[in-house]
């Protein structure tokens, strides 16, 4: 198995690359449309604002090839901003269209719990909604989150796992072969490595 990680520019992918190496999966970093075309399992990480992230995708000319990848039934995993960009649109930098691979929008987190801080920053326990998805172990685990915006899926069935911030917030989404996680597996210590291992095995 080889994983291709899209490098959008600003973020360091050292931890992510090393995470895959630790679980015995080789990976390469890619930036060009040709590389996306030849990719098997594709990972779209992302740090930064929604607008900057989408601008990088357009600059690299990746929108069309990402759509093709998704249509071709090949696995795609978006991480954090990479997950958010899978949706139809985001509002972090004003209205910006997303990749449109999973129906829904990215909206600012709501403050429903008295002590809730925004951005949501830290370790949260993830609740599995769809037990057919076996990326998570049966016991609940905490993962590291760092986000001020959340994915609101149009279709409830695309919501695979949530965290509880006084209301359910998407932690993992999926539509056919396209998946996204709001948390950072590469920053979630053993739980994160375990997730990546299961993901690679299951897809």
């Amino acid at each position, binding site marked *: 198995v080889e994983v291709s990680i899209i490098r959008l520019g600003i973020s*360091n992918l050292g931890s992510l690359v090393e995470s895959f190496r630790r679980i015995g999966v080789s990976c390469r970093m890619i930036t060009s449309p040709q590389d996306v075309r030849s990719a098997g399992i594709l990972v779209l990480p992302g740090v930064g604002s929604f607008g900057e992230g989408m601008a990088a995708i357009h600059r690299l000319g990746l929108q069309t090839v990402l759509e093709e990848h998704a249509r071709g039934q090949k696995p795609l995993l978006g991480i954090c901003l990479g997950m958010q960009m899978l949706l139809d649109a985001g509002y972090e930098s004003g209205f910006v269209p997303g990749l449109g691979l999973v129906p829904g929008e990215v909206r600012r987190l709501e403050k429903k719990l008295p002590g809730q*801080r925004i951005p949501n*920053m830290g370790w949260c326990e993830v609740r599995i909604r769809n037990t057919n998805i076996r990326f998570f172990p049966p016991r609940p685990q905490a993962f590291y989150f760092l986000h001020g915006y959340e994915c609101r899926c149009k279709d409830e069935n695309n919501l695979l796992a949530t965290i509880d911030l006084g209301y359910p917030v998407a932690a993992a989404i999926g539509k056919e072969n396209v998946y996204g996680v709001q948390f950072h597996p590469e920053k979630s210590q053993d739980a994160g490595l375990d997730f990546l291992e299961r993901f690679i095995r299951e897809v």
Partner: protein
Amino acid sequence: MLKKRLIPKLQMKVSRMRGGEQMVLVTTIKFDRVVEVGDPVSQAKIYQAQAADELIFLDLAPTAERRRGVVDVLRKASREIFMPMTVGGGIKTIQDVQLMLKSGADKVSINSEALHRPKFIDETAGIFGSQCVVVSIDYSRTADGDARVFADRGKRDTKLSVVDWAIEVEQRGAGEILLTSIDRDGTQQGLDLQTTKEVTAAVRIPVIASGGCGLASHFVDAFVATSADAVAAGTFFCAKDQSPMQTRARIMNSGIPIRLET
């Protein structure tokens, strides 16, 4: 529900001993005395083994030419550490932020430059997103009892009230505040709960309380008495961990030549 975080703070400086670019881990007392205690990446790995929640790396004596030291630490750490890393110290430009994120930081902590040019917060948040902008606020209680913000590693009294500045940095797009009491720094006498309480009540972004932890109960106090989201400590985590690294570093700091690397 979000969990409270324990954050070892790895303060670093270019070593006096080695005469090179190498960063060493240090602790400080009231921002003044500096004690060399070890190697930042090795210590970071120990903290990872001890399941720290995230790490803060602070370059205490940054200079534009000496960026290589901290970049080096981040690059090495990002290959070994699977937890979030914040880096601060001398971050003044968008290029600085970019370099730090590229080298492996997940968040950058800005301090004096934000006081000097508050728009820098807006600019950084606009480009990289609020979630990666930590504004570090160092403060001290003046003779009249006000908690005032100090710039330039505690050297310059800005006359700003801590609470006012905290509110402003939130409005400008900071995603988190690292709040450090200069008076308590390294004293191990406990956190300044009063100011922590005031600041956490005034803003909606996460606040990391720091400065003064000497007992495990000091962490508990902060979480019980204030709504701090995290506690960061440098001296505490370094001094309580009686590892050979610290012992060796202590010997070395007494001027006795000894191997510091393991």
